[in-house]
């Protein structure tokens, strides 16, 4: 009889083989040999493929899927996420310049350096 921890490892490996791009979005719980899949994916095929991949494992007595389809982020949410990431970066830069007042100054402007040849 395989332990639940072993079955979980095998199920995760099977998910990685079935969905090499999106397996990381899916988590596995195993209880007495029964697997439960959790997480949020973008497309239906990912949900279907995950469930059938784990169901193929002989050590698994049953699979229940609680995988949901992730909702689209509204544009204002994306804008807010970028805006708040800029503010976090500013705060980090200010903290750094207080800690090391004689350092080179502003953080390197990444996007500019990537664009430069």
């Amino acid at each position, binding site marked *: 009889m395989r332990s639940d921890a072993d079955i979980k490892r095998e199920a995760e490996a099977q998910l990685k083989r*079935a*969905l*090499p*791009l*999106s397996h*990381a979005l899916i988590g596995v719980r195993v209880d007495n040999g029964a697997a439960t899949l959790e997480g949020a994916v*973008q*497309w239906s*095929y*990912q949900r279907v*493929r995950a469930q059938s991949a784990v169901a193929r494992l002989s050590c698994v007595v049953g699979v229940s899927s609680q995988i949901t389809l*992730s909702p*689209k*982020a509204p*544009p204002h949410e*994306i*804008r807010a*996420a*970028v*805006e708040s*990431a*800029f503010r*976090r*970066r500013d705060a980090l830069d200010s903290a750094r310049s207080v800690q090391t007042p004689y350092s080179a100054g502003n953080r390197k*402007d*990444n*996007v*500019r*350096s*990537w*664009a*430069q*040849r």
Partner: protein
Amino acid sequence: MLPRVDEVTCEQVAREFDDRGPGVCVARISGEMQRSNPEILDMALRCARDVGKPEEVMVGMCMFYSLLLTQGLRLPKGTPATGSGSLQFSLPHVRAHTRDVIVVQIERDGSEIFTQQWLSSLELDNPQLLQMAHLFASRHADYLGIMQGFVLLYACLESEARAEQSRLH
């Protein structure tokens, strides 16, 4: 202008990455970039190196490029399968000059305004592409760095597309 990516293309590209594996897809798309858009490849690699976990970040950069390429290659409804210009579709070849123009824009406006302006353009003209960028970046520690990488690639490709169009007229 760049093709407007739709949901069908997004799913098609995600499936391709899940079917073939990200490593195979990154190798194929990087090769395509090397042949037809070396400036874009260079910028994507620099971004991937700077934000950390370069192999993972290149998956996103290649997906982003592949979405635009795949969308352009898909025949519009009703287009005959032969003799169509779209069969020869390729993304604009970003020139060194265009890259220089983008650097001037960033220096003039600052990277935050540059990023916000091109995000607005993505939101308006290519909302599915913006979704992909956001979802991918959300899974990484340096969300902003990755979003700026996507924005830079888009700004270069879209600017080149606009320049090509103005040269034609």
